[in-house]
């Protein structure tokens, strides 16, 4: 598909999301929440949510003789807490396992690391809220900080691992954004925009990262609501537009880093009043990457949430 055609598809997707999600269309009843990013859904005063995920990421497509293959397993644990009816606090602590297979003059070798990754803490404040019967619209800015809790000096028999292969970045990186959610008994639509400033440590900085993400969820079962709070099965369609600038090492840009990726992510979600079970796969629809940057084959996500 050409870039022109792809850009038309992207524009159409956003138009559908924005108009379908934020206007008052009348459709069958359903509900759920985004799988691959956060939303503006309510988290009341003194209410907590524990969220666990496992992400499987595979990157290949090295055009060089090194034929690099990167496999990452990330297991982030998220704790969310309602400090008030409007202010929610979040903490994310990931465990990561990274494996890079590469062909060197001596043959194929594997370099790997595992351990605690970089934690994130952030706050979300519900700035605007419109509640109607079975229907809510919320807008909430987000501000947070990525903490250097993961090691960035791991070594193997070949020496210090490359920085992208380290469990952590070593840097304190602020981020901010805004999220909007329109939720009805029938469906939910979310749009989130975030930007992270990667500051760097020890003469290395990852490129800044910007994301524009959207999600649409639709209840598949039950088709008609029963009394009480029945469990719902949702079909989920999400998209993530991710841009990152080039890494900088010793003050010099790495030409083989950064770029833009557009993911399309179908998923499924089962929701009850206390738990959510969910799975999605992010498939790259477009990758415009710099130099020999590895392409993403797919990102698989499975997870749960528990209310307390």
């Amino acid at each position, binding site marked *: 598909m050409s870039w022109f055609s792809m850009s038309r598809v992207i524009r159409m997707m956003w138009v559908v999301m924005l108009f379908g999600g934020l206007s008052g269309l009348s459709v069958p009843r359903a509900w759920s929440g985004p799988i691959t990013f956060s939303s503006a859904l309510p988290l*009341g005063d003194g209410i907590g949510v524990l969220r666990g995920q496992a992400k499987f990421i595979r990157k290949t497509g090295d055009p060089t003789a090194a034929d690099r293959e990167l496999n990452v397993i990330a297991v982030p644990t998220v704790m969310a807490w309602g400090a008030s009816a409007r202010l929610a606090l979040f903490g994310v602590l990931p465990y990561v396992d990274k494996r890079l297979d590469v062909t060197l003059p001596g043959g194929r070798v594997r370099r790997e690391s595992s351990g605690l990754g970089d934690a994130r803490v952030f706050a979300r404040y519900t700035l605007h809220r419109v509640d109607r019967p079975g229907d809510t619209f919320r807008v909430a800015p987000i501000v947070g900080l990525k903490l250097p809790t993961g090691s960035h000096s791991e070594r193997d028999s070949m020496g210090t691992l490359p920085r992208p292969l380290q469990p952590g970045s070593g840097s304190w990186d602020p981020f901010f954004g805004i999220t909007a959610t329109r939720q009805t008994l029938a469906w939910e639509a979310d749009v989130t925009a975030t930007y992270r400033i990667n500051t760097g440590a020890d003469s290395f900085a990852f490129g800044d990262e910007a994301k524009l993400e959207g999600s649409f969820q639709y209840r598949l079962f039950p088709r008609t609501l029963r009394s009480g709070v029945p469990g719902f099965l949702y079909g989920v369609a999400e998209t993530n537009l991710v841009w990152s600038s080039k890494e900088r090492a010793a003050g010099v840009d790495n030409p083989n880093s950064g770029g833009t990726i557009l993911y399309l992510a179908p998923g499924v979600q089962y929701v009850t009043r206390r738990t959510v079970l969910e799975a999605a796969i992010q498939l790259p629809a477009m990758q415009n990457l710099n130099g020999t940057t590895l392409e993403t084959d797919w990102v698989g996500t499975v997870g749960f949430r528990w209310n307390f």
Partner: protein
Amino acid sequence: MKLSALILALGLSFGGLAFAGDGPYQIRVDGLSCPFCSYGIEKKLKALPGVDQVEVDMESGVVTVRMVLGATVSDKQLRKAVADAGFTPREISQGQRQP
């Protein structure tokens, strides 16, 4: 005959008044559109003194609060609990206790 009928009518009327207010509270809640979020309302309302049971009906957006025998709760307490859960309370009514 007329006197006994009058006494019976008065008895029924006062009996009805005596029971009115003993039944469950029903709160219409706006913004209640997801099962996962509904737990917050349950938790906040159950934390009120004297509350025995809380039942949420997603489709109607009505939350029913049943009290232990003899306990009461104010309109203000109910509204605060719903607001603290992140939702908008609307009309609150009280039914009669079922025999």
